[in-house]
């Protein structure tokens, strides 16, 4: 029985759409995102301004392209920090076990129970607001979630035959860990990374919405949403277009993650 993996395809299309906007936005936007125009304030969406214009007469579509880029950049960096640190911690503890593993996992449990956005807030209160501080704070906060996934996969796989074979061949621990085992954790790690990216997007958007993330004149989707709220009555399209971009982005990635997991399940059968 061959069923098409619809959620993977829809997810790829949606996420690809936003990614396309971001990539194009790096080189070209229909208007200058910061160009103000006194005569073009609060224009409703039209062929000339797809998403309308804001309180300064700036083209919202161009700003969304730039803003989505900032959100993408921050989320990617966050995932890179969290995932690489998580992989190192998770693989070592899962593979070697012992009391370090016990202690770290207890700590991990405690941290996972505590809402991640709060931890990030605390870190921000220590570091101060700003784009790079957000990356650092979110990256650190998301380490446990990756470490947990990686750890359990390494703990499971170290009992498998291919690992003992590799050891018999005389492969060192590091080689076994990162050359033999790491690629095999892909099917579990990949969906976790995609979901982690989503969480990062959501967290970044929330922080910037609260005004402690990206500082003006830089724009991220979250910051734009908080700005749009003041003009909700006059220009509802501002909030709508910005928010829907976030929704499409998150929906796309969560469908991809679901599709990846489904594919893994089907392969196991």
């Amino acid at each position, binding site marked *: 029985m061959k069923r098409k993996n619809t*959620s993977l395809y829809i997810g790829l299309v949606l996420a690809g759409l936003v990614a396309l906007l971001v990539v194009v936005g790096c080189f070209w936007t229909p208007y200058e995102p910061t160009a103000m125009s006194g005569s073009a304030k609060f224009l409703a969406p039209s062929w000339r301004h797809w998403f309308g214009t804001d309180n300064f007469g700036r083209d919202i579509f161009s700003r969304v392209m730039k803003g989505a880029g900032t959100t993408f950049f921050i989320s990617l960096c966050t995932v890179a920090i969290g995932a690489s640190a998580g992989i190192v911690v998770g693989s070592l503890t899962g593979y070697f076990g012992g009391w370090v593993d016990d202690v770290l996992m207890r700590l991990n449990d*405690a941290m996972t*129970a*505590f*809402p991640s*956005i*709060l931890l990030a*807030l*605390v870190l*921000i*209160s*220590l570091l*101060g*607001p700003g784009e790079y501080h957000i990356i650092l704070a979110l990256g650190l906060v998301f380490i446990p979630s990756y470490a947990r996934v990686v750890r359990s996969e390494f703990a499971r796989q170290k009992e498998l035959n291919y690992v003992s074979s590799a050891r018999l061949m005389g492969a060192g621990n590091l080689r076994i860990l990162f050359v033999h085992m790491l690629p095999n954790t892909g099917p579990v790690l990949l969906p976790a990374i995609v979901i982690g990216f989503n969480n990062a997007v*959501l967290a970044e*958007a*929330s922080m910037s*919405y*609260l*005004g*402690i993330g990206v500082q003006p004149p830089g724009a991220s989707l979250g910051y734009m*949403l908080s700005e*749009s*709220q003041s003009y*909700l*009555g006059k220009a*509802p399209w501002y*909030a*709508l277009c910005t*928010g829907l971009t*976030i*929704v499409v982005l*998150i*929906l796309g990635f*969560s*469908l991809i993650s*679901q599709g990846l997991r489904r594919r893994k399940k089907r392969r196991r059968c």
Partner: protein
Amino acid sequence: MKYTAKKLLLAAVTMVIVSFLAFLAFQIIPGDPTTTLLGTDATPERVEALRHSLGLDRPFLVRYGSWVAGFFRGALGTSYSYSMPVGSMLGGKIPITGLLTGLSFVLIVAVSLPVGLLSSQKENSRLDQVLDAVNQVLMAVPPFFTGILLTYVFGLVLKWFTPGSFVAPGENFGACLRYLIFPAVAIALPRIAMTVKMLRSSMQSELRRAGYVRTAYSRGDSRRRVLYGHVLRNALVPVVTFLAMTMADIVAGSVVIEQVFAIPGMGQLLLRSVSTRDFPVVQAIIVIIAFWVVLVNFLADVINQRIDPRLRLQ
């Protein structure tokens, strides 16, 4: 009873560790609060006097001890920016955030349990598929965007409520509830979707796994009876754990939602204190929320071992 006592002890230990970490985190940060309070050109004598009056010149463990002791007496420290006792600043805020959390939680449970059961009863039907798609979309909408949409539709277009016109619960409880229902919906929507999904997949895996399901069917039980009489009880355990996590997340998420709806709750105070680096307030709120997290997780453990007594053996 022994199980409860063990869990209670574990919760207490976690609380000690968390409070210690919360205290430590604010000690190792660079920068002295006296610089924030007095400015950089203060005389050394004045700095010393302030450090003494804030108790900053005492050893670390002594300060930790007196800080914890203060918590039991209800003395949570003094705010740097307002020179007010933190306790009295928080006093009026906690009920507001508590009310919002309670309201959201009631919504989540009241909607997600029936819908989740319905979708597992009609597994893979058209209805189930539609519900799954709706869930998927709802999960992707961030609560603050839902909040903005609700503000627009119900606040500005339909005029069911005036955005920003929050009334304290002590003043007019009914009006307060009527205002809070909108943020509660914004918080609850994605959570409902997650809980439905969770319950459905938990029911499904229980249906596939358990031998007792086959026994029940072979005895001639209907699908409904199998689901509600046998499977539900076992499938609830992960859902209860998830709901406990939700309770914790709602309080954390209130930082954002209170901002959207201009509600003067604990979340708003936390945000303001974070921006102004008012550490005693941040510290106190973090410990209160940590206490809340530990408490709901403890309650979930206790409820779960009621549902599934096998857990007591582990």
